[in-house]
């Protein structure tokens, strides 16, 4: 609804403003993100200096996998940064102030903060990806379409997870590591899921759907993704989304606010 878009817009603008209040920290964070990206890239290149192919993919394809991961990762962090602050709201009781307003509490807790730095990093990622598209051969229109739709699919899975974290925060207030686990798991998607031996590969593709999130888009683009897998991917993401939302509402019902 229009109202929710306006509210999100306002929240995003406010987060941008608040961000500029602390500029020194911003420099460190941005530098950190760039350094992390570059060092890992350097490491991948180091390996490829000595070997021609990794699990059947050439250099450019591997780079594409890496960039796709980064695109999804940055988008997720940009949109859902508020989830990291959520625990504070519960502990301090500020969450009550959110519940008393006619805005969906899940919406507010999930999308309440938009991270400027991740937003900034998106642009070069997109540019780089388009560049790599030209280096990787055989890109079809259908491929690109599937690529984009699977990226959106990945975002749906990511939001399901973040909603789960929010629900956990209400129930236990002990969620510090849950988000980091998510990051560790999805971090495994920096390389094609084929790198992992079975049964890990199955686990990482369908149980903890990292493979679906980060590898499927590229595979679809390269035309190596089967139709079955494609359908399964969509089914899993929708199921996870519905389940996590269900869990959120259940947790909310059980909520006892921090006493005065």
């Amino acid at each position, binding site marked *: 609804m229009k109202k929710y878009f306006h509210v999100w817009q306002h929240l995003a603008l406010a987060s941008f403003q608040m961000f500029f209040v602390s500029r020194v920290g911003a420099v460190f964070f941005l530098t950190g993100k760039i*350094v992390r990206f570059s060092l890992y890239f350097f490491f991948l290149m180091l390996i490829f200096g000595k070997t021609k192919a990794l699990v059947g993919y050439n250099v450019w394809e591997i780079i594409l996998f890496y960039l796709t991961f980064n695109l999804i990762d940055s988008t997720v962090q940009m949109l859902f940064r508020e989830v990291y602050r959520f625990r504070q709201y519960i502990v301090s009781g500020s969450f009550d102030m959110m519940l008393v307003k006619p805005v969906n509490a899940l919406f507010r807790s999930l999308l309440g903060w938009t991270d400027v730095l991740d937003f900034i990093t998106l642009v070069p990622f997109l540019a780089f990806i388009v560049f790599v598209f030209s280096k990787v051969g055989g890109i079809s229109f259908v491929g690109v379409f599937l690529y984009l739709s699977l990226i959106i699919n990945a975002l749906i899975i990511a939001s399901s997870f973040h909603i789960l974290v929010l629900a956990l925060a209400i129930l236990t207030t002990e969620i510090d590591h849950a988000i980091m686990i998510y990051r560790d798991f999805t971090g495994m998607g920096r390389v094609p899921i084929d*790198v992992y031996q079975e049964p890990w590969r199955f686990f990482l593709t369908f149980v903890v759907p990292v493979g679906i999130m980060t590898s499927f888009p590229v595979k679809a683009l390269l035309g190596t993704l089967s139709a079955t897998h494609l359908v399964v991917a969509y089914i899993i993401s929708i199921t996870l989304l519905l389940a996590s939302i269900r869990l959120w509402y259940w947790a909310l019902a059980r909520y006892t606010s921090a006493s005065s």
Partner: protein
Amino acid sequence: MKKYITSASIAFGEYFVYRLNFILWRVRNILSVLMMYFLWHAVYLTRIDMFTYTRESMLTYILLIIFVGSVVLSTRAYKIAEDITTGNLKTFLLQPINYLGVALSKEVTDKLINITFSLVEFAILFIVLHPPLVLPQSMGTLFLFAIALFLGASLYFEFGVILSCIGFWSREVWAPRFLFYIIVTFLSGMYFPLDIVEGPLGVVLTLLPFGYLIYFPIAVFLERLPPSMLLNGFFLSLLWLLVLSLVSHKMWQKGLRTFTAEGS
């Protein structure tokens, strides 16, 4: 002495209060290594050796990261930063104990817990992955390994104190730590053995203190270093430890002066 033991046991209790967190934290340790393990395994599918590492030695390296990382890189030194920025340090300064001494004893508890659990994790991974391991030939190696671990842990503790001291002068403690951690992750050998980097870059890496956190102890264990390099390594790590201790001590003193002067 008793008060240090008491504070250590309190620290122990604190871990279990946050039970879910604790379990998740251990799981993360395993995950962080799994990716690298599989990646290198895949790399070695098509080759026997790479960068002078055989498949066996590379995979041993990666698995050892869990253990060494747990011992060296786990630290509560960042709690110091917390105490500074929240002002809690005031309370501690009023008590008849040496604050850094207490921090150190908590650190020891931390390491002991970590060593215990990482051994368990190591065993689990060993059973599950059936990795080919390269084990040291002599007891002397293990002895040197222990020393290297000790040096690495001390180095990291000093780093932690120095970074925490930033809290005396600025509210931004997390941001520099974030950047530091990323740099350390790569330059310490947590992602890949540092000697795969050739040329002048490789030399720089041996001169920096970070390599002595993870890479050096493991290299000692794997018996990859000729005696001359061993000597060099220990010498450099000792040197860095000295330098960092001096810096951290100076910063701590200076910081305390600023802290108490402001009466924040």
